[in-house]
């Protein structure tokens, strides 16, 4: 028979972005007043159409644009890409949460999606009650949940707290229980968003193991992650998404390589930044050890120098800029450019941050830049602006055995007690 699990043709999803709305919600009054105005202007034969005025406040944004792919039954497909590349939107459209604007998706098989761990968990309900609730929400039948109940509880390691409301759970227990329910879903096609980014390392490993097990049973998996190691070990195929399109699909190692070393030049746009100050401070670029752009590879023995350039449109009192480094979605460090109570003058600025050699372990790091007026809520922030790679070069200062995020060069000693006489 047909061995296609998912076939996507010409898929597009458009969002209309509104500018200058006071609050996030649509205002009913605006619509009523706007509608009344429209009627009045349409009644007036001499008025010009005010269409241009209206268009200036909205902007079309294609979160997905002309996406085409086909997934065979039993394929484990990773989806990678920067934030805002359209990964989550793709999953939402595939899971029927939101409707596509153009195109067609054909799905063949029972599909379940896991876009968040613990969707629908109710804090007032007990662990036992939440297993049934969450299971039903994820599409399991009561019978199915009942038959797997013990397995779910054992996997989550929460036997003792089954009849405690989950609001009294520690966050670790909460996540374990939530993931455990999800892990026992048995769909033919499983769509998973970055859900493994939660929980402690031990449990993450267990979850990856469980997912690997699931995939061996011949199920189709779509897996979005920023964790390249997980993608590499789980997925036989990977799609790389950029700006709402699939820029590469094929073998996982190749996709990961392209993701980490994109060929195009990355420039900051005002859209890369958020916050009330995003129109007052314009960041232009960042250079890492003199190299502009992204995907820079650094030798562990080199000192890291970040040089951020930008323009401030006005003077800001006691303003400190910050540079944040992330690895596997975890913040590694935050460092600021000046001491407290220093004003940022109007004009062009360059701020530099230095990080000593051998501090960071090999791997991929992403950079976020932001700033904040002290004692004030005005801020600006941009995440995943660019990334760099610390090379795997082993030496005494940078041992392979020495795992973790930061590196402490060999600094130990051993004494034998019996030798001391």
């Amino acid at each position, binding site marked *: 028979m047909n061995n296609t699990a998912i076939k996507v043709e010409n898929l*597009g999803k458009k969002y209309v972005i509104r500018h200058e709305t006071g609050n996030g919600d649509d205002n*009913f009054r605006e619509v009523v007043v706007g509608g009344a105005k429209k009627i009045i202007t349409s009644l007036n034969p001499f008025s010009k159409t005010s269409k241009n005025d209206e268009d200036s406040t909205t902007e079309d944004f294609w979160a997905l644009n002309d996406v085409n792919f086909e997934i065979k039954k039993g394929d484990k497909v990773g989806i990678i890409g920067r934030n805002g590349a359209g990964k989550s939107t793709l999953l939402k459209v595939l899971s*029927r949460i939101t*409707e596509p*604007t153009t195109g067609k998706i054909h*799905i063949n098989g029972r599909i379940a999606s896991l876009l968040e761990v613990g*969707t629908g968990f109710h804090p007032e*309900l007990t662990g036992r009650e939440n297993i049934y609730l969450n299971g039903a*929400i994820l*599409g399991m039948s009561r019978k199915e949940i009942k038959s797997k109940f013990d397995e779910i509880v054992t996997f989550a390691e929460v036997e003792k707290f089954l009849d405690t409301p989950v609001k009294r759970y520690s966050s670790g227990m909460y996540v374990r229980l939530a993931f455990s329910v999800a892990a026992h879903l048995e769909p033919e096609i499983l769509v998973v968003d970055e859900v493994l980014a939660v929980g402690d390392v031990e449990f993450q490993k267990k979850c990856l193991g469980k997912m690997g097990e699931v995939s061996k049973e011949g199920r189709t998996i779509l897996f979005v992650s920023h964790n390249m190691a997980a993608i590499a070990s789980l997925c036989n195929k990977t799609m790389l998404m950029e700006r709402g399109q699939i820029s590469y699909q094929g073998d996982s190692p190749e996709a990961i390589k392209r993701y980490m070393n994109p060929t195009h030049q990355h420039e900051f746009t005002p859209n890369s930044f958020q916050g009330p100050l995003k129109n007052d401070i314009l960041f232009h670029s960042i250079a890492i050890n003199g190299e502009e752009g992204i995907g820079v590879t650094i030798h562990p023995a080199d000192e890291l120098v970040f040089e951020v350039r930008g323009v401030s449109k006005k003077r800001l009192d006691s303003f400190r800029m910050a540079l944040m480094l992330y690895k596997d979605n975890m913040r590694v460090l935050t460092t600021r450019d000046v001491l407290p109570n220093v004003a940022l003058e109007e004009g062009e600025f360059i701020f530099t941050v230095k990080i000593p050699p051998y501090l960071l372990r090999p791997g991929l790091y992403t950079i976020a830049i932001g700033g904040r007026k002290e004692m004030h809520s005005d801020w600006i922030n941009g995440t995943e602006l660019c990334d760099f790679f610390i090379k795997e070069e082993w030496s005494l200062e940078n041992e392979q055995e020495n795992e973790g995020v930061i590196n402490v060069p060999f600094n130990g000693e051993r004494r034998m007690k019996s030798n001391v006489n």
Partner: protein
Amino acid sequence: MEKNKDFEFTIEANKAERHYWADLWRYRELFYILAWRDIAVQYKQTIMGVLWAVLRPLLTMMIFVVVFGKIAKLPSEGVPYPVFVFAAMLPWTFFATAFTSAGNSLVSNANLISKVYFPRLIIPAASIIVAMVDFLISFTILIALMFWYSYFPTWHMLTLPLFLLLGFFAAFGAGLFIASLNVKYRDFRFIIPFVSQLGLYISPVAFSTTLVPEKYQLLYYMNPMVAVIDGFRWAISGGQTAFNMTEVIVSIIVVTLLCVFGAIYFRKTEKTFADVI
């Protein structure tokens, strides 16, 4: 194992899903469990617990008895005033809670809507079940009241479920409209309590429908709860109060229109819920 064929489907832009109603049936377990969740959660960590379902209408009734029965001395068609008011308070409280929870249901389940697929119609429908349970609990007071005033149930009582059904659909239809509007325009958050408060006074809860001037009667019947309340009174008093057929017909028409257009509007906006909520 269910056959694969059931799970083969196509998602296409701007196309109504043929599977919607079949899906609604397939997701019935979710409906039960969401209704159960709302019931289970409602009285958690309260000392009075389920008693609140009894206390609220009881206290309101007592105030009405004092203000409208004793002070304003409103006529009650020969029925003891407490029974007269409580017979109306029951369906009205049911309608108000059902309408309020249905109207707010989508917004309060925003996390589900933006993360999981299921026919969204389940949410407002399930939220009304809580009001139904509250209704059944407070119904016990009515039985106590009837004993106290030695009213014994007659065959009229058997028509009660029909009027309750009418009230259910009135709340459901109106709730569908408000719920989907509330997703986009949070203004409706403020309209909902206003409607349920004002409705208490413009519906014939404290007074009898016969007090409404003749020329406004037909207009008055447009409020679908008028027929429900009068029907409750008629059924509970064993035919002692008047039964008005025009009222019931007008109400059925209004409720049908509300449900049909409510469902159409809901279905039309449903697909964008996840984007705007």
